[in-house]
């Protein structure tokens, strides 16, 4: 006989005991909540994490679930105690309800989400519902739940859930024991938030420090930094007048993880394989690091960012840094995620936010939804704190600060908001289109308004940067540092794409500002030759006078900084988000810029497009068919690079 769901247990419910409540909550987390969360992302994890590590990390997450389970159990024990005094007959029902009904709601929500994602996956993601579907669905669920409780009765529903969870407890014991065993046999490394202490009795140094400041998602066209009359970043443009400004600086990809990995290693994504937003660098690439070489040469190495994707804690290069701070943001979920980075080799920073995705896109917002939760000033304040902390250290310093602004959400502070787009539109987070989406031509006017708010965000980021540079100069430190100011990638408001990431490689996505000031430099210059993000690490090592990175894809452009000629070479950018690091190179787009020619090769289909950037900066006219020789020649260079990358895969890149 098949039991109906509500014929298993009849009231009365047992009195709530702390241990019972704890194991019941933990069973719900371990057997339902966590699997329902992990299943949709498991394929994404296995693209860049070995299967054993994924299992270990999910096990760690299940062990960590003991903490919220304990909190829930304590809360319910308190409720039980209070209810037994006020309403003894219903105390057990109230206490168990406080524990089980939220868990039931979360479980049903996650299960519905799983069903929806599965339907999208098997149907080719063609399912779309109108915006009215969600409130209608919520109302229907509320009505159905009310009917359920009315027909069946609240006590029976609670008893059924309790019985089902308690009956599954042995499975929880087994799963947790396996998780514990794997955590012991395959342990994760720990990286605290405190800076590593300087070495004993360091030598005094005459070498300049290196300061790298990267602002997230700054498009060259919108920043216009090499133009002294820049309207969006006038403070940086003023700084650039006494420095070297690169008018054609190309990023190695179109999102943070890939590009910051290139900045640190001088390797292109086809070698370091940080090719998905959540991925880490491949193990063989991690020692091939600017910070690692500098640290070996006696430098202090520091990273400060409010964007976890830009942190060595995320890339996996954290052992190379004495400091790897995550700056404060206004997002409620951020502290949880940052705590997870104490185990930086794990995927916990990805898994924990996924578990709380049911809070929705605004659920993690702690501050006013009309303001961005990210503030450049928080990062610069941490830089000040770090420099004060290191004041008496006599080793040379390498400091890399990365600020999320002007990255979306485009909600600039009052100081710059409404300078370009009047009040009344795009004022709150909910007014903005989602990040990183395709849009229809009919939406171009709306996207243009987003661009105006973005430019206001650029203005705010410029003010924060300018204020900090002024402080740095007044401190007298400026002339003792090589100062690099740049971005990780661009931002698109054209070609039917808003934001960044994804497969595209048009100029808006891969061209950003680069300003380099050598110590005591006063004379400015503008360089028009294309240079690559992969050139940064080799150049800084060259300037620092320490050994070069042996396998870098970039080269030192020191000559250009010193006003000397340098023979031009092609530069590359690529998007490989569907490419597994465990599979042969077979997908992705690869761009090569050689002078004014730009070839974009799609590896899966073999299609190649050629553009003349001088005549066609918007890349609207593919001239590959009319220039077959040029296309073939550039294509062979890309294919040679791919072959070389494949040959180097998994092999040591450093002696």
């Amino acid at each position: 006989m098949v039991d109906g769901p509500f014929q298993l247990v009849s009231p009365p419910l047992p009195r709530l005991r702390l241990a019972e409540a704890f194991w019941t909550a933990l069973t719900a987390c371990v057997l339902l909540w966590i699997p329902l969360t992990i299943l949709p992302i498991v394929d994404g994890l296995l693209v860049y994490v070995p299967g054993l590590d994924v299992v270990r990390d999910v096990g760690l997450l299940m062990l960590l679930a003991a903490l919220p389970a304990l909190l829930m159990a304590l809360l319910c024990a308190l409720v039980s105690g209070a209810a037994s005094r006020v309403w003894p007959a219903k105390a057990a029902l109230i206490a168990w309800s406080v524990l089980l009904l939220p868990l039931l709601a979360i479980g049903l929500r996650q299960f519905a989400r799983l069903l929806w994602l599965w339907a999208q996956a098997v149907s080719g993601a063609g399912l779309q519902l109108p915006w009215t579907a969600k409130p209608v669905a919520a109302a229907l669920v509320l009505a159905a739940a009310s009917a359920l409780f009315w027909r069946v009765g609240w006590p029976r529903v609670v008893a059924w859930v309790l019985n089902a969870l308690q009956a599954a407890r042995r499975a929880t014991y087994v799963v947790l024991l396996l998780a514990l065993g794997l955590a012991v046999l395959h342990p994760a490394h720990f990286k605290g938030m405190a800076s590593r202490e300087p070495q004993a009795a360091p030598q005094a140094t005459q070498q300049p420090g290196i300061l790298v400041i990267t602002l997230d998602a700054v498009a060259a066209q919108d920043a216009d930094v090499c133009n002294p009359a820049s309207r969006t970043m006038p403070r940086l443009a003023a700084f650039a007048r006494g420095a070297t400004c690169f008018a054609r600086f190309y990023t190695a990809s179109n999102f943070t993880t890939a590009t910051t990995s290139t900045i640190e290693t001088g390797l292109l994504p086809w070698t370091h394989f940080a090719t998905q937003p959540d991925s880490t660098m491949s193990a063989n690439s991690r020692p091939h690091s600017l910070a690692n070489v500098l640290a070996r040469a006696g430098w202090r190495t520091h990273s400060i960012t409010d964007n976890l994707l830009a942190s060595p804690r995320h890339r996996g290069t954290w052992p190379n840094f004495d400091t790897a701070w995550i700056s404060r943001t206004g997002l409620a979920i951020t502290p949880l995620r940052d705590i997870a980075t104490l185990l930086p080799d794990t995927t916990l920073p990805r898994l924990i936010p996924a578990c709380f995705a049911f809070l929705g896109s605004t659920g993690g917002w702690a501050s006013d939804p009309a303001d961005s939760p990210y503030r450049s000033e928080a990062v610069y304040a941490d830089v000040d704190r770090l420099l004060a902390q290191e004041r008496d250290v006599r080793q040379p310093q390498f400091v890399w600060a990365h600020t999320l602004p002007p990255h979306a959400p485009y909600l600039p502070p009052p100081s710059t908001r409404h300078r370009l787009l009047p009040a009344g539109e795009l004022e709150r987070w909910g007014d903005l289109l989602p990040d990183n989406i395709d849009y229809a031509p009919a939406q171009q006017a709306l996207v243009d308004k987003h661009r105006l708010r973005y430019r206001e965000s650029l203005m705010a980021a410029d003010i924060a940067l300018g204020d900090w540079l002024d402080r740095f100069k007044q401190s007298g430190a400026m002339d003792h540092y090589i100062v690099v100011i740049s971005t990780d990638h661009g931002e698109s408001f054209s070609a039917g794409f808003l934001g960044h990431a994804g497969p595209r490689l048009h100029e808006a996505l891969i061209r950003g500002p680069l300003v380099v000031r050598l110590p005591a430099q006063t004379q400015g210059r503008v360089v028009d030759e294309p240079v690559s993000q992969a050139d940064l690490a080799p150049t800084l090592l060259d300037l620092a006078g320490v050994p070069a990175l042996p396998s870098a894809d970039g080269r030192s452009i020191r000559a250009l900084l010193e006003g000397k000629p340098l023979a031009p070479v092609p530069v590359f950018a690529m998007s490989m988000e569907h490419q597994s690091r465990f599979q042969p190179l077979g997908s992705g787009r690869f761009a090569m810029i050689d002078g004014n020619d730009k070839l974009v090769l799609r590896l899966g289909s073999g299609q190649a497009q050629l553009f003349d950037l001088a005549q066609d900066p918007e890349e609207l006219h593919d001239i590959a068919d009319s220039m077959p020789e040029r296309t073939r020649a550039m294509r062979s260079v890309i294919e040679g690079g791919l072959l070389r990358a494949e040959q180097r895969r998994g092999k040591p890149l450093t002696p």
Partner: protein
Amino acid sequence: MNQFLRRVLLCTLALLLPTAAHAYIDPNAGGMLFQLLAPVFAAVVGAWLFLRRWITELIKAGWRWLTGRSNS
């Protein structure tokens, strides 16, 4: 609970969309492994919730048939 209410509940739950996230969407989420594992997981959970007693009785009956004695 009657069949109608149960169906309404399940259909409406399926309509609850994940909120559009202002963040990176993992391009490899929802892949082949997910498409295979999700129904398996749903079937296991569903069987546990709705057929638990039946499965238990079946196992007990099998045990009795194999050993010729009660396992209670």
